[in-house]
């Protein structure tokens, strides 16, 4: 039950004698409730109050392609006929009409007319208890997504009863998708398509679909409008990764089969998340990339200090260590936006120590403005050639290796660029992350023993055995 606090606060604000102060207080209370419903929203007050044409509040959402807005009209009248009249005046803007008094709508016929008119015009007609009911679930990330979708694209008549029905059905739908049960999933999908404009309904349905597929359901059996793409849409993946932990490696394995590094790079998780850790744990042997750039980064004071490496998505999928970050991309060009720690190169002796266990098949020295390249035609080891020591001696004490070609035991070819701290697959060679990361970090960093151990841990095969936990995420109560 909505506890009526929102409504009571509005009532107190309306009781303020002076008109401007009263209107301002009402707007502040309504704005606070919309903030609870969707913390991302920016809210501006207009100077109007209960106006026929001008909104009281403008909700604004920042976005990559510019911000978008939705008007909120506060209404004194709870009579359906008045609300219908008000709706007709402003419906072209697809706004929210918020009745300041509880809407009982006892006459089912008129309520039906208002429900139909508001749905057809993509306008949300609601009351304090309706908004409060949607907002009171907002400590749950899934319902925060639903709340945001309602604020941006909710439509139809939503009083407390309908809001309650919506939250219950969505909760059941979420559990249904997780358990691969058609009926509750179908009801939830139908409901969001009824109560949300198509683009916002689509987000929730795609998320349900991703959970359905991740839980082992067949895509073609998903009840609701299906995205025919075998990949999980970006928005659904972003939400999945942000949600409360889904401690089910099989789930993330199925999800991981449908995502790519390029797609992860489009998302935003600068602080990482437990679900991203799980996804990477089971997917690092499958996800591939062609380039890795390592950058020294000192933690700033506000950073949470973690002693182990963890995954983040900050323009790129990256493994964040206490002293440095390893950024990954499908091509080296895509790493242009990661600033380089520019170096002159590496001493040959140090390279041979770092490249222990790898074959160095190509060397490029730089010394006093001269470049010398020495390379094997067949990607064989050149580091032990007597000629190399001759070059070293001849070039003098200031000669540095600026690039090196490496052959992995798998015969895959890498190059390491010590000036930009970048390792890439030669000639478009793709490497799975557990294959790319160890040589990249070993070549580009002077790793401590502890870092070496952590690297081994990061590239070891995932353990799928008996540590399965029953999923707890969706037990909202």
């Amino acid at each position, binding site marked *: 039950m909505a506890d009526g606090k929102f409504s009571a606060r509005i*009532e107190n604000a*309306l*009781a303020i004698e002076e*008109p*401007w102060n*009263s*209107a301002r207080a009402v707007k502040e209370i309504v704005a606070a409730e919309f903030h609870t419903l969707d913390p991302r929203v920016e809210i*501006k*007050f*207009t*100077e*109007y*109050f*209960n*106006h*026929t*044409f*001008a*909104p009281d509040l*403008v909700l604004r959402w920042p976005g990559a392609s510019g911000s978008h807005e939705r*008007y909120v009209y506060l209404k*004194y*009248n*709870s*009579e359906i*006929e*008045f609300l*219908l*009249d008000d709706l*007709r*005046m402003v419906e*072209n*803007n697809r706004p929210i009409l918020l009745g*300041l*008094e509880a809407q009982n709508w006892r006459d089912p016929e008129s309520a039906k007319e208002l429900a139909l008119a508001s749905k057809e015009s993509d306008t949300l007609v609601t009351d304090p208890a309706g908004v409060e009911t949607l907002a009171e679930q907002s400590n749950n990330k899934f319902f925060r997504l639903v709340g945001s979708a309602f604020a941006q694209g909710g439509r139809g008549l939503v009083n407390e009863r309908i809001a309650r029905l919506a939250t219950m059905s969505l909760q059941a739908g979420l559990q249904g998708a997780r358990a691969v049960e058609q009926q509750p999933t179908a009801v939830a999908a139908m409901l969001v398509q009824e109560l949300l404009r198509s683009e916002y309904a689509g987000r929730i349905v795609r998320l349900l679909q991703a959970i359905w597929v991740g839980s082992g359901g067949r895509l073609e059996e998903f009840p609701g409008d299906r995205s025919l793409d075998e990949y999980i849409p970006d928005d659904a993946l972003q939400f999945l990764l942000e949600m409360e932990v889904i401690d089910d490696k099989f789930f993330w394995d199925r999800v991981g089969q449908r995502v790519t590094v390029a797609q992860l790079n489009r998302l935003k998780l600068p602080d990482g998340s437990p679900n991203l850790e799980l996804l990477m744990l089971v997917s690092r042997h499958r996800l591939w990339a062609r380039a890795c750039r390592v950058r020294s980064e000192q933690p700033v004071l506000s950073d949470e200090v973690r002693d182990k490496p963890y995954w983040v998505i900050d323009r790129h999928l990256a493994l964040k260590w206490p002293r440095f970050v390893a950024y990954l991309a499908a091509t080296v060009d895509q790493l242009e936006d990661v600033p380089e720690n520019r170096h002159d190169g590496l001493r040959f002796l140090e390279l041979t120590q770092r490249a222990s266990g790898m074959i160095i098949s190509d060397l490029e020295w730089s010394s006093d403005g001269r470049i010398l390249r020495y390379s094997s035609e067949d990607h064989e080891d050149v580091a032990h050639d007597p000629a190399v020591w001759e070059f070293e001696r001849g070039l003098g004490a200031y000669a540095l290796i600026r690039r090196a070609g490496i052959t992995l035991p798998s015969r895959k070819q890498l190059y390491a660029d010590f000036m930009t701290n970048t390792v890439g697959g030669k000639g478009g060679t793709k490497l799975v992350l557990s294959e790319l990361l160890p040589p990249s970090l070993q070549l580009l960093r002077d790793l401590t023993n502890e870092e070496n151990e952590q690297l081994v841990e990061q590239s070891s095969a995932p353990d799928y055995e008996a540590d399965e936990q029953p999923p707890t995420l969706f037990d909202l109560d």
Partner: protein
Amino acid sequence: MHAKGADGARRAKIYLEATTRANVYWVNPADRAVPKLTFPWLSGGNFSFDMGGVLLGGDLEGQEFLAESKNYASAQDQGTHYLKFVAQCYRAFTLRPERCDNFVWIAWSPFLVTRWDELQTPAFVREGVLEHRGRVLGEADPDRARELVDDDTTKAVADRLRMMFLSSWHEKLTPLRPDLFNLLNFERGL
């Protein structure tokens, strides 16, 4: 042209707001608006205006108004109502002058046409107050009541009386909806 359920006060609100120069905050009988429009008679009991709000723009910016609307097809007993209205204005001004920048009478039919030039004068306000002397002044005796009427207040009220006449046709002559949304600059005060 108007949706069902739109009564006089509602039509007046829509018209006033379509002019872009008024914002009708409170309309009777919405429960939570009523207290803002209600004043007590001196003798006990209350009266309330039909609507109230603020005026916008130019020299009217920020002024408050209280209004009564009579959606009658003919004069009917509007004269009697108007006389009571001016008595209410006198009482409201006595109690809360800061809320009484404008008293607006909104009608759809002329009335008291033979006394047209008197309707917004201090003398007419005095007449209204004396007609309702028991409730406004708490004095039943006409002679004693005459002595209680305050001339400054009757003049202040007369200065604040406004007449507005509407008809369906007149109500059409407001900016078209898309123009109106451009005229109403929501950014003001944002």
